[in-house]
């Protein structure tokens, strides 16, 4: 039913991932739970979201189940690329019970190898750039990047500084931009729901 293959992530170590056959029909609940966390899809994001025709999607139940899992429980990694800490405080506020991103299944993780979404705050400083790229490369596919706050989106007030490159998209591709200085928890919630909606459309 499943092929288990090793995929080497940049930065050393091998992450085990389960590649599901395209025609996989029915699984037991147990293997589904494994698949939704570790299921890998090497296709680029754009293709995955817009790609296949409706008929193909219908046939491809296995993939749809994986999407369902990603949509229902995106695990995130929070990374400060040079922020003033205001956006970080708002991200924590969004995660904790008052605003409660967790009701959408969002869980904060401590390592890039376990996460689906990289949540970045702050402009990319010249010093952090290589670290950011290294962390991004350690995240298993499919991966998404959310830029939280004005600085992460465009460089914001830090634009033009001698030690700053600009927004997150100067270093890695970004899926969602959340404006605000700092971005309010409501805006972060909204951004996440929109990102999850994109995944749903691509279902």
């Amino acid at each position, binding site marked *: 039913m499943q092929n288990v293959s090793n995929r080497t992530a940049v930065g050393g170590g091998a992450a085990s991932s389960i590649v599901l056959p395209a025609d996989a029909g029915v699984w037991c609940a147990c293997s589904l739970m494994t698949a939704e966390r570790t299921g890998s899809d090497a296709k680029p994001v754009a293709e995955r979201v817009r790609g296949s025709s409706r008929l193909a999607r219908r046939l491809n139940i296995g993939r749809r189940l994986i999407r369902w899992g990603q949509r229902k429980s995106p695990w995130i990694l929070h990374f400060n690329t040079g922020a003033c800490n205001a956006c970080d405080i708002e991200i924590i506020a969004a995660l904790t019970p008052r605003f409660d991103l967790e009701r959408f299944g969002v869980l904060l993780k401590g390592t890039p190898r376990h996460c689906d979404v990289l949540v970045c705050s702050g402009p990319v400083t010249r010093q952090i750039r290589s670290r950011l790229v290294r962390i991004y490369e350690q995240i298993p596919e499919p991966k998404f990047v959310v830029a939280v706050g004005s600085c992460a989106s465009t460089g914001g007030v830090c634009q033009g*500084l001698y*030690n700053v*490159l600009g927004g997150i998209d100067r270093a890695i591709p970004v899926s969602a931009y959340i404006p605000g200085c700092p971005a309010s928890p409501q805006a972060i919630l909204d951004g996440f729901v929109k990102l999850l909606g994109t995944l749903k459309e691509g279902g």
Partner: protein
Amino acid sequence: MSEAEAVRAELEKRFPYLAGAVRVQRAKRLWVEVDQAHFAEVFEALSKKLGFTVLCTITGLDLGADLGFIYHLARPAGLMANVKTRAPKGKAIRSVSPLFPGGGIFERELIDLFGASVEGLPPGARYPLPDDWPEGEHPLLKDWQPTSAGTGEKGADRE
């Protein structure tokens, strides 16, 4: 006589050339202007004899042909003595790290950001500019151009 006035009187007594160069800005703020030749002895007297045991930070200034330095000294109770001095660009100043080991980090900042040269620093890595920063670029100098180091172009990430 306030605490700051007392320090001014003491400084002028010890170093006659400081007459008129010490200014009491307000109750706990003292400014001392001293040239490079006399800086070391005034600085040592303040830190060793007059109880200014804290070096808060060092400010660097680009004054055209010269570089300015302001050493912000303080007594633990809150009286601050700001010692101003200046040296021509390219001329080395003496490190204060024998008196304040932690002051070395401020002097490394002066070296990176202003291109100052400092004698007597213990060996160590440069600080605080990024690792891939090009040699000879000192971003806090007035005539430094943002694009000359390849970063900081305003709006460069937006067409």
